């Protein structure tokens, strides 16, 4: 993609000076300066917990800085709430979608617009939004309900909503984290067009180097709440950015596969299940897995992975089929009994399902130990033992936390994930179900989590790994199962699974060569 880096230096449209933000026990931002020039795509790069999201929340008025000042178009501004920021032409698209799923696209776009106070004139709003779509070259069905849209389309709805609200500066927080590769390409091309033709300024928050290299003009790198580099993208290389981001060189270690093939542990036969909307989302899946093996389920989110994981964990009833662990039929066992028999589960929703924000780290650890007689003698919590266990997890799994009594809500996503992983793995599960275990994690944490999954495998655990990241699947799995519309297209041994074949199967292309391999 063409990147114009050699333009005359323009004045910053948005300038940040000396922004500092403290959270209990954490210095999230430490005197951060940032200057964004009009008409740029300005990338904010950093690992999890570097302070990117906090900085963007300050720019959007969601969080108040403790120190420092903002200025917009040369004027000092102070945002008490997102209302103030929107009034000044700043729009934000959050990492997680904030749309009303049951409403139409148009209703979502119009919702919260300053002009829509009491009366809703949807007809005139439709004309305006249609004009906006034509101008920016978007094609979205304004009458469709948001739940019917794909993740990429939903993101465009949020961008449209921000533009309809009059935004000329767009903040996108990790916009590519839930998109498929084609959707990412569409998004980046669309952003380029917005910047080139409409003079919109884009702040792109990400930890993905290829995105930065492909789409940005300038990049500011944050590490541990400080700005460590300000570069023109044209003058940067991926290696340089990684060094700034991490503070040193990282070697990507190659994963070894040396475990002996063990006894058969998991047998799944013809498993089907409904999704939350009552549609058959899992349609007759069968596979078996031995101890010390990793099955990598590769697919784009929404093809039945969530339902598969939940049925295996006992959180969703199977409509037909059986699940056997070590020969025992566990299809209808409740989650507690599955934990007790050594099935460990790492959910994708680390904030909503796998942790309790208001609970301390010790209490969050307890979530997987409250039924364990070793930690609850005579029904009483062994507070000392649980605190020791938590400290062990913090040190073994390299969790950055001020204290083991800190509340989980003060941990960044990556550190929280390491805590969850640690507390599940220290149970030494025989069967481990890991759903998107590295989603949203930075390079270092991703490598760490992958290594720990392989350690568990080396100790004889059978691992069901669900991921959207094909590289992750191919580097960890012994068996690769592309999933499409609730079915395994095939279950391939790793050596027969190359990226092209699996990618084609994930996209729903019929099985061409896999059967002959």
């Amino acid at each position: 993609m063409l990147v114009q880096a050699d333009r005359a230096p323009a004045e910053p449209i948005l300038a940040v000076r000396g922004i500092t933000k403290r959270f209990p026990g954490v210095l999230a931002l430490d005197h951060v300066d940032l200057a964004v020039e009009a008409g740029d795509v300005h990338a904010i790069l950093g690992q999890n917990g570097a302070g990117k999201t906090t900085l963007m929340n300050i720019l959007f008025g969601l969080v108040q800085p403790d120190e420092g000042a903002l200025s917009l178009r040369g004027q000092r501004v102070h945002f008490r709430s997102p209302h103030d920021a929107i009034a000044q032409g700043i729009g934000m698209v959050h990492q997680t979608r904030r749309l009303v799923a049951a409403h139409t696209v148009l209703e979502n776009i119009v919702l919260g617009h300053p002009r829509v106070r009491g009366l809703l004139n949807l007809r005139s709003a439709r004309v305006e939004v249609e004009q906006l779509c034509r101008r920016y070259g978007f094609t979205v069905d304004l009458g469709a309900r948001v739940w019917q849209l794909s993740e990429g389309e939903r993101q465009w709805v949020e961008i449209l909503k921000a533009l309809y609200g009059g935004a000329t500066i767009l903040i996108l927080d990790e916009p590519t984290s839930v998109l498929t590769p084609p959707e990412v390409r569409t998004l980046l091309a669309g952003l380029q067009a917005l910047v080139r033709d409409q003079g919109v300024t884009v702040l792109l928050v990400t930890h993905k180097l290829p995105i930065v290299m492909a789409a940005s003009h300038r990049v500011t790198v944050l590490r541990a709440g400080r700005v460590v580099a300000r570069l023109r993208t044209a003058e940067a290389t991926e290696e340089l950015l990684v060094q700034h981001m991490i503070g040193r060189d990282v070697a990507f270690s190659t994963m070894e596969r040396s475990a002996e093939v063990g006894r058969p542990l998991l047998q799944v036969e013809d498993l089907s299940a409904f999704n939350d909307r009552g549609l058959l989302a899992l349609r007759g899946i069968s596979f078996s897995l031995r101890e010390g093996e990793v099955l990598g389920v590769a697919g784009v989110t929404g093809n039945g992975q969530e339902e598969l994981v939940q049925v295996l964990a006992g959180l969703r009833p199977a409509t037909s089929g059986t699940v056997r662990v070590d020969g025992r039929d566990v299809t209808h066992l409740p989650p507690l009994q599955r934990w007790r028999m050594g099935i460990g589960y790492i959910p994708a929703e680390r904030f909503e399902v796998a942790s309790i924000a208001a609970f301390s780290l010790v209490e969050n650890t307890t979530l997987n130990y409250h039924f364990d007689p070793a930690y609850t003698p005579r029904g009483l919590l062994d507070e000392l033992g649980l605190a020791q266990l938590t400290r062990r997890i913090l040190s073994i799994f390299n969790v950055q936390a001020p204290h083991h009594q800190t509340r989980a809500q003060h941990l960044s996503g990556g550190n929280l994930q390491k805590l969850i992983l640690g507390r599940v793995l220290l149970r030494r599960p025989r069967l481990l179900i890991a759903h998107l275990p590295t989603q949203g994690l930075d390079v270092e944490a991703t490598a760490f989590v992958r290594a720990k999954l392989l350690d568990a495998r080396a100790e004889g655990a059978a691992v069901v790994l669900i991921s959207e990241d094909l590289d992750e699947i191919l580097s960890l799995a012994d068996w690769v199962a592309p999933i499409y519309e609730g079915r395994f297209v095939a279950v391939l041994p790793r050596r027969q699974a190359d990226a092209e074949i699996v990618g084609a199967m994930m996209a729903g292309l019929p099985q061409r060569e896999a059967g002959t391999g």
Partner: protein
Amino acid sequence: MRVGRYSLALDPRPAVSPIYAVLTAVVAILLALALSSFLFLSADANLFGAYRTVFAYAFFTPRGILATLQRAIYLLFCTYAFLVPLRAGLWNIGLPGQVFAGALAAFAVPSLLRAQETAALPLAAAVIVLLMVVAAAAAGGLLGGLAGLLRARLQVNEILVTMMLNSILFWLVSYMIKEGGPFMGATAEGEGFTLPSPLTAPLFRGVPYTAALALGAAILLDLLFAKTALGYRIRAFGENPAAARYGGISPVALPLLVFLLGGAFAGLAGYHAFTAIPGVYKIPGNYGFYGDLSFYGLISALIARGSALGAVPIAVLFAGLSLGARFAQGALRLPFGVDYALLGLLMMTFVASHVFYQFRITWRRVPAEALQPVSTETGGR
């Protein structure tokens, strides 16, 4: 907020020290009393005289102290009845119904044993009293458990169910004690029968033994939530049901359990109100008053932020102020309803004071450079 060179901000507070919590509560009480001055002023009463009357009656006369204690015990049982499901994130609005169920079950024991007359007790009095307590707790628990079961199994909203059960039980009590009803009193004037004196709750220096039950329950409940695996499960379910389910906590058994337990406490409140307060010892015609009063248990559980022991002083205060204000209303000819107004003000100042548990106000000096325009080149535009 910016004031001159300083900025004022509400910051999240990581932890609250007990001393600070008590101080905040005391300030809230003083503020409520100050606000209630307007009520007293409007009645041309001497302000300090009015306060003195309220407090002197409730906390410094033998008669008033006993009445305050009796009512505080009742409020405490109601508090626990709301507090236990609340810790699991569920709202038990069925306090009146469960109180009535407890009362009916307590009186059903002597009625079924034909022990309404002192002359011929079929069992030892202590055994019958024990049966009455157990029956009251069981009946309240079953009624609460019904709501919990409907919630857990069929996702029926527990607030709606418990509120409708309140009405059903209200009219059931009415049927039981009216003329010709099974629990009709000797005078047949819309009251239940009077308990024979051996079956009333034993008193120690005028204080019924239910006081010990109420205080013991407070200690046990706080220990349950702080120290036990079961308490942990209840709290986890209350904070995040999805996480609790992930962790193996049953989304059916847990709501059922907390409603059984909560209902049982409300049943005990019903037992206490009608068999342990001298001068009552029957289901009176104005039994509906106790149903209304039970909702102060809800308020005190919310104010105590889920701590059973923390609710004890609050229940005593509510009991004393409601009795004292009612007394002052008669003695000083204050406007009708001054007792409820006082409790209402107290509720509001307590709830408002909760801001200070979660946030602290901080002043910060704005750095000089932040007050300057950022870029000098753009200043002239």
